[in-house]
Each structure stands twice: as structure tokens, then as C-alpha cells.
């Protein structure tokens, strides 16, 4: 069997399995991390399809920046439901969250 078809086959199987896992997993954080790795596999697929500009753009934008946006939003959506404590600060490790 030709080596090219083997690599392409493995890549396609990996992409489809990652896409299924990304949407079927229970934990949302795992889904976002799987989406970032799906973006990196897609970047390799662009290289296999003779599109190097798209590979650079997908690795930087599709995997990197989209992952950062999704993780930032995931963190915002995880705030606990409202209580009547008005002066508890909202802290985080290194990120820039303000105290109202």
C-alpha cells in the first residue's frame, strides 16, 4: 500500500474521531481542548493538500486564538449562581478580572 494514502487515511480517521469526541464528551473543558487539537490536525491536513498558507493561518487562528477565546468564555460562564454577597471579590490566577 502506498505510504501517502496510509498517512492521509490515518489523518482523516483521526480528524473524524476527534470531531465525534469533541461533541460527545461530557466535560466542556475537554471538548474545548479536543477542538484545539482538531484544529492542529486540520493544519496538517492543509499541508497534505498543498496549502501552506492555510496551514499557518489555521494553526495560528483556528487552533490558537479560537481556543483562547473559548477558554476565556468558558471561564466566564462558570460563575456560580447569584447570591446576596455583594462584596466578595472575583479572583483569578493570572488573568485580568476586575473587582466591581
Amino acid at each position, binding site marked *: 500500500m502506498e505510504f501517502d494514502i496510509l498517512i492521509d487515511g490515518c489523518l482523516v480517521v483521526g480528524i473524524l474521531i476527534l470531531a465525534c469526541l469533541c461533541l460527545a464528551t461530557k466535560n466542556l473543558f475537554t471538548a474545548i481542548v479536543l477542538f484545539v487539537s482538531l484544529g492542529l490536525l486540520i493544519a496538517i491536513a492543509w499541508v497534505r493538500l498543498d496549502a501552506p498558507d492555510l496551514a499557518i493561518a489555521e494553526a495560528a487562528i483556528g487552533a490558537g*486564538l479560537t481556543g483562547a477565546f473559548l477558554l476565556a468564555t468558558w471561564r466566564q460562564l462558570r460563575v456560580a449562581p447569584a447570591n446576596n454577597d455583594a462584596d466578595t471579590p472575583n479572583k483569578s490566577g*493570572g488573568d485580568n478580572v476586575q473587582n466591581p
Partner: protein
Amino acid sequence: MFKTPEFKENNHANELPFATRILCATAIGALGLGLIFALILSENISSSLPALVQQNLTQSGVQNPVTAVLLNFRSYDTLLEIGVLLTVAIAMLPNSNFNSDINPHMPGGSRLVSVVNSAPVNPPLEALLRWLIPMIIVMAGYMLWTGAALPGGAFQSGALLAGAGVLAQLSGRLQFCFTSTTAKLLLTIGLITFVMVAVGVATTTGVILQYPLELAAPLILLIETAATLSIAAILLLSYNTLATQTFESSSEPSVFDKQPSALSETSAPNETLQSQTAEGPKP
């Protein structure tokens, strides 16, 4: 898909029933199989566009065909795309938050980048960033320059710069304020340069966006540089807005504050809330 979207994780109350899901899966599977069948059996439509691009590549000012198509042959699409990015930036801008209490010596809203002195020091991260951020900036400049002949260009370079900005914000040391004058200049310079070049060449050649042949390469480089700065600023503004959302009316402790294992499994939020309110408000 027509129910209200959920905001709590692991809340399976409003999920679609099993039969509906099976029906959707079979319908989409049948559609997919039909499409695969049709696409594999159909022949490649040979279009004349690649041959046209190859013929006129020498007149475009660059050697990379993708850059030539993006910035010379179909430059109107790129102009409108930068306009779309600016529209998203205008939507993000009122929602971005800047904390002027962190650095009281500097009045808020005047500087693009300000240093946060009260952030906890993280020596390995800062040591890494001292090397990494300049390297990313040099890499972005290289990617911009080499987009003329090799794979690269404005979008890749702008995304790299935005990545450097995201890293700088994540370290906690730097804070970006996008209502400053520098930021507004950076956000709009891409579109302004593109439109000015488009109208300016119309005075010479008579058609908007038709570069004169000897000026094509410098004009493309000028447009790409301005577009890089703009794209980086817009993507960084998007991350800044998404990461600094506050909740003005109700500030409550997040799930991360008490439990170190909050990332693994989502416990019911009410339980953590009971344990936190029992301890009283934090000063």
C-alpha cells in the same frame, strides 16, 4: 435546536428526546452519504482562473499566487473583510473593561499598555515571556515580509501578534486599554490605509484598486503592514473583552476560588455556594 440554549453544564433537563436524535442522525447520515456519492462521482470542473493567475503573476508585484490573489486581483474582497473585522471590533469595544484602580499613578484610558504592579509574580512565566514575546514579534515581521514570495502574509502575521498579546495579558503583568488613542489608531489603520490606497491609485490609473505596475509591490507591502497591525489589534481586543467581563450587579465567588479540583468534574453549584456562604464574605 429550537429550545432555549443552556448555560449550565451537565444540565440534561432540556435535551432532545432519544427518538428525535436518532431521526436527526439518520437524516444527516443519509444527506452526507448522498453528498459523498455525488462529489466523488462528479468530475473536476476545470476553471480558467488558475491559468489566468499564472499568466498575470509577474504583473502583480509579488511571486506568491495566494498573496497576489488576496491583495491584487481580489483586493476588494480583502478590503471588505477588514471592514467586517472592524465591525466586530466596534461591537467588542463598549464591552471591554479596564480597571483604573490597579495603577493609580496612571489615569485610566490613556495608555494602550500599562503595567500591573500588584499582580502575583510568576518567575518562570515571566522569564519565558521575556524571550518569547520578542521572538514572536520578530517572527511576525518575518512572516509579513516573506509573504511576497513564500507562504505567509498579513493574516498569519497579525494572528501571531495577537497571540503575543494574549500571552502578555495572561501573565497578569500587562493590561490593555483599548479606548486609548493609540488603540483606536491601531484598530482603524488597516481599513484607512486600504481605502486611501484604493482611492489614491484611482487618480493615476482611473480605476479604483488598480495599482500602477511599478508601484504594485510597495503598495502591497504598505497595505499588508497596516492590515497586520489592524488584525492583531482587533483579535487582541476580542480576547481582552472576552476575558475581562465583569458582573456588575452580582459579584459572587467563582467555582475556582475554593476547589482546586473544579476543573475535573462539575459538582452541583449550589453545594459549593452553601459551603462558601457559610464562611462569610471575604474582605
